C-alpha cells in the first residue's frame, strides 16, 4: 500500500467529524432534539426546520461514506499484525466498519424522511424521528467490533518491532467501553442515558471522533514504515 494511499485513507478521519457534526449542526440536531417532547412539539420542530434538517442529513449520509476509508486502513493494519492469510480479527473489523458506515447512513436517511413531508401527522413524524435517533445512538456494536478487534490485534502483535505502541491497543479497549452506553437510549427519555444525555450521546460522540482522529494520526506516522516493509517483502 503506497504511502500516499495510506495518508489519504487516514485523512478521512478528519473529514468525518466535519461532515457528521457539521451536518447535525445544520440540521439543528446539536444538541439533539429532546426525547421527552410530545408528538406535537416534535412535529413542530421538524416542520419548522424541514429544509435545514434534510440538508444536514445529506452531509451526515456522506459522513457515513467517509467512515469507510479509515475503516479499510484499520482492517489492513490488523491483517498485517495478524500475519498470514488466516486473519479473523481483520474480518471482524471489516464487518464492523461496514455496519458502522451503514449505522450512520441509515439514520440520516430516516431523519431526512421525517422532515420530508411537513404536512404529515404529528405521530407519524415523531415515529420517524424516534426511529432515526434510536438507530443512530443505540446501535453500538459496530464500533465495539472495530475498537476491540484493533485492540486485540495490537496487544497480540508478536513481531520483533511492532509498529504500534501497546498503549494504543489499551486505548482501543477503553474506547470500546466508552461507546458501550449508547445501547441504553431505548430505556430512557431523560437523564444521562437518553439520546441527548451526557453518557449515551456526548461521551460517545467526543470519544468516537477523538478515537478516529487519534487512529488517523498513528496511521499517518507509520505510513512510511508500512510502505518500506511492503517493498522489502
Amino acid at each position, binding site marked *: 500500500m503506497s504511502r500516499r494511499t495510506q495518508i489519504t485513507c487516514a485523512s478521512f478521519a478528519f473529514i468525518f467529524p466535519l461532515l457528521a457534526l457539521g451536518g447535525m449542526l445544520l440540521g439543528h440536531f446539536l444538541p439533539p432534539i429532546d426525547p421527552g417532547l410530545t408528538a406535537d412539539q416534535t412535529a413542530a420542530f421538524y416542520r419548522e426546520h424541514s429544509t435545514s434538517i434534510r440538508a444536514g442529513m445529506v452531509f451526515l449520509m456522506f459522513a457515513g461514506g467517509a467512515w469507510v476509508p479509515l475503516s479499510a486502513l484499520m482492517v489492513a493494519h490488523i491483517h498485517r499484525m495478524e500475519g498470514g492469510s488466516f486473519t479473523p480479527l481483520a474480518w471482524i473489523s471489516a464487518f464492523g466498519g461496514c455496519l458502522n458506515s451503514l449505522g450512520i447512513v441509515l439514520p440520516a436517511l430516516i431523519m431526512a424522511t421525517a422532515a420530508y413531508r411537513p404536512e404529515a401527522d404529528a405521530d407519524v413524524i415523531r415515529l420517524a424521528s424516534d426511529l432515526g435517533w434510536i438507530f443512530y445512538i443505540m446501535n453500538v456494536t459496530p464500533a465495539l467490533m472495530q475498537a476491540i478487534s484493533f485492540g486485540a490485534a495490537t496487544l497480540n502483535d508478536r513481531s520483533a518491532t511492532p509498529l504500534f505502541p501497546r498503549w494504543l491497543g*489499551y486505548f482501543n479497549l*477503553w474506547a470500546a*467501553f466508552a461507546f458501550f452506553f449508547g445501547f441504553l437510549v431505548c430505556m430512557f427519555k431523560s*437523564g*444521562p442515558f437518553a439520546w441527548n444525555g451526557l453518557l449515551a450521546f456526548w*461521551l460517545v460522540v467526543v470519544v468516537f471522533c477523538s478515537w478516529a482522529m487519534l487512529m488517523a494520526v498513528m496511521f499517518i506516522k507509520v505510513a512510511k514504515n508500512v510502505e518500506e516493509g511492503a517493498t522489502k517483502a
Partner: protein
Amino acid sequence: VTTTSSPHAAERTGRHVPGEEGLWVFVLGDMVVFALFFATVVVTSVHHPAAVSQSQDQLHVSLGLGNTVILLLGSLLAIHGTNKARRGLAAATWCFGATALCGVAFAAIKVTEYAMLLETGVTPGQNPFFINYFVFTFIHLAHLVIGVALMVILSVVTRAPSTEPRRLRLVEVGAVYWHMVDLLWLILFPLLYLVRQ
C-alpha cells in the same frame, strides 16, 4: 520498551510500572468514565433529594457492605498471588482461583440484591436514583465478570512455576484490573448506599 515489558529488568532500575505502561491508559480512562457516573449520582441527589433518600431506604446496606469485604478479600488474595508469581511459585494458582471465587460470590450477592429489590416492586426506571443504581452497579458488575475471567486465566497460566517476563506481565495486568474494579466499588458503594442528602 524492553524495560517496561520485563519486570525484572525494570526492578533493577527501581522504576517499575505495574503490568505495563499502556495498561494505565485503559485504567485511567475507565476511571474518568466512572468519575462521570459518580458526578451523575451526586447531581441526581441534589436535584431529587426526597426520591433519593426514600429509595436509599429500600437498599440492603448489609449486602453492599458484605460485597465490599468480599472484594477487598479478593484484592488481598490477588496481591498474594502476584507476589508468589513474581517468585515463580506454583502456589499463585490457588490465590488467583480464590480471587475468582470472591468475584463469583460478589456477583451472586449482587444478583440476589437485584432480585430482592425487583420483588418488592422496584423497577429500574422508577426514579432517577434507581436508574443510576441499576445502570451503574450493572456496568460495575460487567467489569467484575471480566475480572473473574482474567483471574481464571491467571490461575491456569500460573499452574507451572515460571518467571517468564511475558507471563509476569499478564499476572500484573490482571491484578491491576482487579484492583481497579475493587477501587471503583469502594466509591460506588458509599455514594449509592450511604451518602445522605
